Every structure is written in C-alpha cells, then in structure tokens.
C-alpha cells in the first residue's frame, strides 16, 4: 500500500472558501478513484491561503484486473444473431467462449497502475473543481476556454510514494517542489512524500493543517488577553477566518485609546471584527476593554512592535469614524428621522418604510388592546436556551385565553410608541455603515433620548427572533412590536402575491413566519391566526386578494410550524389531524397555535398508546365502511327501536358517556381528558365489530348501525380528524 500527496499551490484563496474546497477536493478525489475501482484507506485534506492539499493513504499499486462477461446468443442460434453479437462486441467467433450451449464474450481488463489512474484523475479534478467564483489569468487567458481556478494556480505537487505522478494541466507540470512561507521561506523545497509533508512545510514556516493554525490562534489569543489581565471575547468565526488568512499565525495584542469606549461596545466589536478581523477583550468587570488581538502572518524581527502599532492606528481610524457616526446620530431625535423614512421604499407596491411603520404601530397597539399581548405573558418554557423554541407545553394543558382588556392602557401606548420608533435607525449614519446594527443602534438612541426603557428594549429587539435558535423576546412591549412587524411583512407580501418558491425567498418570509410562530408559542399568545390576518389586512390600505391570501397565510404558517416542530419530534400527520383544512367550525379546526400544539402533543402521545392504536384502527374501519356506503358528515341520531345486540347497546352507552366528556374536555382545553374519553370507546368499538353485523339483511338495522358508526366518527372528530393520522 502506498500514500499519495497532492498539493495545489496558488495565490491567496479567500478564507471563506477554504473549508468548502477541502470538502470538494475529498469528494471529487474519492469519486475519481471509485471510477477506476480504487479506494483509499484514509483521505486527509488541508487548506490555507496559498495551498490546498490532499493526502490519500493506503492505495494499492495498481487496480485489480477485471473480467467482463457479456452473454450472447445460443451456439445453435441462426447466423444473423451471431453476426449481430460479434458486431456489437467487436470480437470474432473464435474469441467467444461457449458454456452450456450459450456463447459468451469475455473481455479481460488488466489492472492499471494507480499512478496512471491518478495522472488522469487529478487534471480532471482540477478542471471540474467547483469554486464559488473562479477566474482566468495570464497569457493563456487569451482564450476564454483557458483553465479557471479561484486565483492563479502556480504549481502542483503530485507524489505517489516518493514518485512524481506526471501530468500537465494548462502549462503547469506536476512535480515535487513547493515553496514555504511567502516571506520566511520563499525558496523551493523538494518534497519527499505524504509522510513528511506536514513537517517539511512546518520547517518552512507553513502550518498546513488549518486545525492546528486555529488551535494556535485560539490558545495564543486567550493567553495574550490573560497576560494583560483581560479575558478574550471568543469568536470561532474569527478563529477560522484568521486561520484562513495565515500560514504561520502570530496573534498580537494591541491597545486603542480608552476614549473610544464611549462608543457602544457592539459597535467596537463589530468594527474590529468585520473590518479588521480582530478579537476584542473584556476586563475583569465584564466590560469591553481597550484592547484588541490581531493575527499576523509573520514572526517579525522586532517582535511585532511595528505590526501592533500599525494595526492600532487603523483601528483608531475606524473607531474615530464610528464615534463620528454615533455622535452625529445622537444629535437627531429618532422622531425627526421620519421624513427620511418616507423616502425609503419598502417595496414598490407596499409603500415606504414610513408606511410600514404606520401599519406596524397600529397592529402593535391592537395586539395589546385585544388582550393578545398582555402585561405579563405567561411563559411556559422552563428556561432559555434549552431545546428549540416552543418545546414543552406540557401534555394537553394550556393557560386559559386572556380576557380582552379594554384599551390596553399604558402597554398599548408603549407598544405603539416603540413601533413608531423601531425603524428610525435605518437612516442613521451608524446603521448606514453597519447594516447589521439595525435595531441595536435604535435601542441605544431611544434610550439616549429618554424613552421608556421598555420602548428602547423593544426598538432594540423587535427584529428577533431571527431564525430558529435565536432568543425569542418575552418583554410585552417587544413582543407586540416584533409580532406586529412580522405579521405585517407576511400579510403585505402575500397580499401582493409575493410568495417564496423553492429556494427563492427574497423577502425572508419563511423566517418571518418562523419568528411569528416562535413569538406566539413561546409567549403563549392566545389568538386565532384568522384574526391576526384580517386585522393586518384591515390595517393596510393596499388592495389585497384577501380570501386567497388568507388561506395561503394559514397554510404557510402551518407549514412552517411543521418544519419548526419536526426537530421536536412532532409528527406532521398529527398536526394535520388537528389543523384540518377548511373552516373554523368543521371538525373543530384549530386556528389558535398555542392550543393547536397542546392538542397535537396530547394526540401524538395518545395515538402511540395501545388504546390509541386500537381506537385508530376501529375508527378507520368505521370510516371506511361509511365511505363505502356513502355516508358523509354528521347524521341525525335516533335511538333504534329494534332489540339491540349487547355489543351495540354497549357502544351506544359508551358514546353517551364519552361524547359529553370529550366535548367538555376540549372546551376546557384539557386534551388529555379528551383523549381519555376517546379511549373509553376503544373496547366497545372493538366488540361491536367482533359481534355485530353492520350490513344486516334488515334495512332498518343496517341504517341504524351505519348511523351509529357515523356517531363514532363524529365523536372522534370532536377531538381530531383521525383519518389524517398515518398508520
């Protein structure tokens, strides 16, 4: 067994593309080997700014010989058949083998040297390599067909064992030489093979293993902070990015003027991270310190003094700009930015951002006045951060719907005010410079102009939750604004027929729906999505195809709910059984997401019990009979006048007892009790099917028994549409 080393050395590969490149290299290599019937014992890939490498261990020296057998006609077949077969295989009659009266064409393919396979595979991989963006370069690029790579490709090392695998791609001949660090070891190095690769390059001041570079950055940056009596603000994204920008990472700690600490810490951190790729540090009191850690790519002869000084200056200039924006922004009240919002088009058919603000403010007030968002929303989650949102509405129990509050008082005023200010920071200098600070800066500016802290918090957090896993706001004012914002976005875009399709969701409507669901479930907001939709529609002055959009809105929310709940193990068919298409009344279709989830959980727990499985089977049998007989919907029930069979009488008695219990339990939102009521039907239904013939010769009995089955079906439907449940 032999090892193979491949190194593709180029000009600097963007850091963000390196991980994907490693993955693709391994994948393509494995696929090319597989085509030749080869596989490596182990494949290791490395990526850095100037090289992409692969080591494949345990390759055989050659592929195995294979023999292919193609069955032909019988030996006794007419000559035409034989001729056809010979033509097809390109053989002569003498070359065929006869076995049991049948002719076979047997071709033996000898094994190929692995080096030969590699010499074809590598050029194929390089030509087909899927970089996110690639380019042409040099004299070769006079043709647009010239080779493409992420940046100019300079050299390829391909060593099988210690031997060069010879090939040529667009003027680059494979070899065994590479170069070390751009500044520390620029001379050519002759590589000996896979085993020594990492160490030979280490000697040339190149750490080829990205994980090793990351570990050094992580450890050294922390140590530098600790030596300065500080704590590093960890950031794995930065670790990876710096590891992708260096071949020989040397973290260095520098300081900036304390005066800049007046700028909000998030701004400093963002400036340092995004523009300069620096880490920041906290002091012992948990506050941001005036220190940064940059990662150089050289061991400077002066120990890095000049580098730290230079980086410090650049950061100071950045912070000076940031402070300029911050101080300028503070001079204008958020209220006074409204005219600017009137100039920003939210969407050409949906008016300006100012129009949106107007709609959101109205909706936020309504959510409070309607009692949907109340002063202390009952939180059902045990704590933040465990599991995904909306996890544990305990089996069947939900808090009672909040009584409508007239007016909503202070809370409504705060919600409206917060909504009114929420988007103003979009036209501030700071958010213009750093769009990702939207909300956060608004929060700072709102607090600075003396707004109620609850308003400032709502301005800050109203974009949340952004995606699954993000914290869901719980402060009532924030909840009202966040929910109103997302609701308006969804309804408005659906109203103008903008819907996500496939992978296209340019207005992030799926995320908005997930956010809306999270806000409702996490805060146990009791409302019907129908009411939310129509309020939002009524709020907007744009013409909306309401009926169509309303149905779509409901389906969209339920669809997102299924996606969101999948990770909690909630079955989509069980959700369907509770949701049901159609109107609110039919089968008691559920449009209150909190109650819906409680019902779903109770139902899912029930259908996996023995009682549940059997009841489901009984229900399906009854439903099938009814379907066959064309009995649809609820049937009026009158007690039969003939002599009942015992099982028949039992079932009627069981229904008499269970129906009111189930109805009562559903009304009281005690879904476990509702399930228990259904469970009491299981044995009588089973016995009914065992002992009673539905299709009796006596038409009166037949009709009465079908009506009884319809009653069973209706009773089950008071809890859920069991026909939707799989299995």
């Amino acid at each position, binding site marked *: 067994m032999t090892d193979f080393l491949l190194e593709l050395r180029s000009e600097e590969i963007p850091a963000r593309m390196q991980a994907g490149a490693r993955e693709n290299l391994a994948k393509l290599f494995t696929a090319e080997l597989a085509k030749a019937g080869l596989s490596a014992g182990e494949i290791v890939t490395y990526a850095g700014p100037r090289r992409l490498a692969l080591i494949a261990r345990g390759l055989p020296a050659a592929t195995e010989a294979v023999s292919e057998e193609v069955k032909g006609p019988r030996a006794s077949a007419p000559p035409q058949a034989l001729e056809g077969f010979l033509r097809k295989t390109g053989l002569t009659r003498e070359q065929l083998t006869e076995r049991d009266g049948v002719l076979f064409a047997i071709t033996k393919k000898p094994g190929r040297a692995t080096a030969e396979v590699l010499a074809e595979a590598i050029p194929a991989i390089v030509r087909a390599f899927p970089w996110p963006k690639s380019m042409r370069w040099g*004299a070769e690029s006079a043709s647009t067909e010239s080779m493409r790579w992420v940046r*100019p490709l300079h050299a390829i090392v391909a060593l099988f064992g210690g031997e060069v695998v010879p090939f040529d791609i667009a003027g680059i001949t494979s070899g065994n030489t590479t170069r070390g660090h751009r*500044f520390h070891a620029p001379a050519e190095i002759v590589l000996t093979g896979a085993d020594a690769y990492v160490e030979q390059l280490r000697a040339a001041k190149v750490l080829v293993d990205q994980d090793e570079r990351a570990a050094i950055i992580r450890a050294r940056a922390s140590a530098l902070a600790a030596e300065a009596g500080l704590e590093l603000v960890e950031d794995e994204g930065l670790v990876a990015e710096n590891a992708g920008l260096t071949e020989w990472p040397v973290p260095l700690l520098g300081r900036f003027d304390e005066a800049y600490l007046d700028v909000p810490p998030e701004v400093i951190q963002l400036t340092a991270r995004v523009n300069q790729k620096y880490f920041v540090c906290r002091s012992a009191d948990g506050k941001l310190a005036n220190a940064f850690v940059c990662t*150089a*790519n*050289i061991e400077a*002869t*002066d120990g890095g003094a000049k580098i730290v000084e230079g980086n410090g200056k650049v950061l100071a200039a950045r912070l000076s700009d940031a402070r300029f924006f911050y101080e300028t922004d503070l001079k204008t009240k958020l209220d006074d930015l409204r005219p600017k919002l009137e100039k920003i088009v939210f969407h050409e058919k949906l008016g300006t951002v100012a129009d949106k603000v107007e709609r959101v403010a109205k909706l936020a007030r309504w959510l409070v006045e309607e009692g949907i968002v109340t002063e202390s929303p009952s939180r059902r989650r045990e704590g933040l951060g465990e599991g995904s949102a909306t996890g544990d509405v305990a089996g069947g129990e939900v808090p009672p719907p909040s009584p409508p509050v007239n007016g909503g008082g202070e809370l409504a005023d705060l919600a409206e005010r917060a909504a009114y200010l929420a988007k103003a920071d979009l036209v501030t200098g700071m958010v213009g410079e750093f769009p990702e600070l939207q909300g956060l800066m608004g929060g700072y500016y709102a607090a600075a102009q003396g707004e109620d802290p609850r308003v400032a918090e709502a301005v800050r957090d109203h974009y949340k939750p952004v995606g699954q896993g993000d914290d869901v706001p719980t402060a009532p004012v924030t909840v009202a604004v966040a929910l109103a914002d997302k609701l308006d976005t969804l309804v408005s875009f659906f109203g103008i027929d903008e819907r996500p399709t496939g992978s296209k969701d340019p207005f992030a409507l799926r995320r908005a729906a997930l956010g809306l669901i999270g806000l409702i479930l996490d805060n146990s907001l009791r409302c019907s999505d129908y009411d939310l939709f129509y309020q939002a529609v009524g709020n907007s002055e744009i013409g909306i195809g309401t009926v169509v959009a309303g149905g779509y809105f409901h389906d969209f929310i339920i669809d997102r709910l299924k996606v969101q709940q999948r990770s909690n193990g909630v079955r989509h068919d069980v959700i369907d059984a509770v949701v049901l298409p159609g109107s609110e009344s039919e089968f008691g279709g559920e449009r209150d997401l909190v109650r819906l989830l409680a019902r779903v959980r109770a139902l899912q727990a029930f259908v996996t019990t023995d009682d549940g499985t059997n009841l489901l089977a009984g229900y399906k049998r009854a439903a099938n009979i009814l379907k066959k007989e064309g009995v649809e919907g609820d049937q009026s029930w009158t007690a039969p006048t003939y002599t009942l069979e015992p099982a028949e009488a039992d079932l009627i008695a069981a229904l008499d007892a269970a129906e009111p219990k189930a109805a009562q339990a559903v009304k009281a939102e005690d879904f476990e009790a509702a399930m228990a009521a259904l469970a009491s039907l299981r044995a009588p239904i089973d016995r009914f099917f065992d002992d009673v013939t539905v299709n009796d010769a006596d038409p009166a009995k037949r009709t009465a028994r079908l009506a009884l089955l319809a009653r069973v079906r209706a009773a089950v439907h008071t809890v859920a549409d069991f026909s939707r449940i799989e299995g």
Partner: protein
Amino acid sequence: MILTLHDYWSERGCVILQPYDMEMGAGTFHPATTLRALGPESWNAAFVQPCRRPTDGRYGENPNRLQHYYQYQVILKPSPADLQDLYLGSLAAIGVDMTKHDIRFVEDDWESPTLGAWGLGWEVWCDGMEVTQFTYFQQMGGYDMKPVAGELTYGLERLAMYIQDVDNVYDLRFNDAGVSYGDVFLENEKQMSTWNFEVADTDTLFDAFKKAAAECERCLEAKLPIPAYEQAIKASHTFNLLQARGVISVAERQAYMGRVRDLAKGACGAWMDKNGWAA
C-alpha cells in the same frame, strides 16, 4: 515615492503615462486602463491619476477621507505569472520592510457597475491597513478579457502616511522645506466639499449629464470610440456630483448607473470594432 514607483515599473517594461486630464472616480477610468485592457495586444503602463469622489468629501475634517486624492495605477496585460512578487518588490522599493510588517492578501472582488467591469483579487493589507487594490480583470465594458489584465491601484496618500508615519493626511510632508499636504490641499477640500454637497447647480448638472450622454451617442454613431468614452467619463462624474447633491433617489440611481454603463459599454464595443477584435 512616485518617482520610485515610476522607476520600478519602467524598469519592468511599463510605459509611464501622465494623468488623464478629465475628472474621474478612479484610475481604472483612465482610457489607458479601460480601453487598453481590451483586446489581445500586450499592454503595460503605469501612471498617477487624480481621483474625484464627490461623496467622499469631509470638508477637510477626516484624517483620511478626501474627495480628491491620488492613485498610482499599474496595468499589465497579460497578467504576468509573478505579478504578486513584482508588486511586493515595488513595496520594498518604496521602503516597506517585509520582515517587520505584515503584508496580507485579503479577498476583495472588484466590480464597477458603471464600467460593466469586474475582476477577482484582493485588497492588500499592510499591518491591517488597505494599501492597494489588486485585481485580475475578468470583464471590461461587458466584454470578456482576452487575455486577462492585472491591475494594481496604490492609494498614494495612505502609503505616504504609512511611510512617513503620520496619522493625518494633511500632516504629510510634501517636501523637505516644510510644505505639508494640508498646505496644498486643505482649502481645496473645504471649498470643493461645499460645492459638491451644497452649491453645485443641479439643473446645470442634469443638463450636463444629458448632453454628455447625447454627445457620447453621436460619437458612437461617428465610430469614434475615444471621444465617446470621454463623454461617458463626463457623464459618470456628473452623475457622482448629482449623487453628492442628494437629488437622485434610490430608484433613479439604478437607472442612471445603467445609463452610464451603456455608454461605457458602447464606447468599449466601438473600440473593439475599430480594432477589429471579436467579442
């Protein structure tokens, strides 16, 4: 510094040109870059180009943002295999010690929507400061580069600040006799910022834009790509001034940029035709 760069690139086969005598936002607009980048012929040139970016004006109050500054531009076609080394050699020539300073090539893809041009490359960092834009042009005026040209754009003020170790551009020493950058340019920045942002007559500018666009088209009809391109540059700068005056809405902005792009593409196309080059 400029002389050193001239020497360095001249020794490496570049023709040394003078600045183009029109207002433009970047050295890339110089016809020696835009038009000469097209076509199969070899072309190596280096020159200083004053750049005007009306919206970057800060009334002389920002330590490194200016509405008028200088770029040193090198264009090499086809891009030589050792372009990175050549570039690093030029840094060494102007006094950057690479055993003490951290030079890094950080991804930064370049695109000029008004020139219909894009390329891949980096911003070159020296101790965290961007000192050069390094680009392999892939398209110009909407045409694929055949072959690809390499473009280096040095920010002269930044490099000078770095080499002279000053924090404010206006403190740069212009000579050894005590003349500073501020002595030469501060008043200019103040007055031009005021004009760009507050005074420039927008009706005149709108009119100028229309006239430049119309003249560009007339030149294209007359199959005169160079004058057509000059008019495209004029339209582009006029558009930048209108932007600074804040009279172009977000929606209109795209339309104006598209208009300039069409003019620039037209000029590039006419240049290709004139030279008999296929697209």
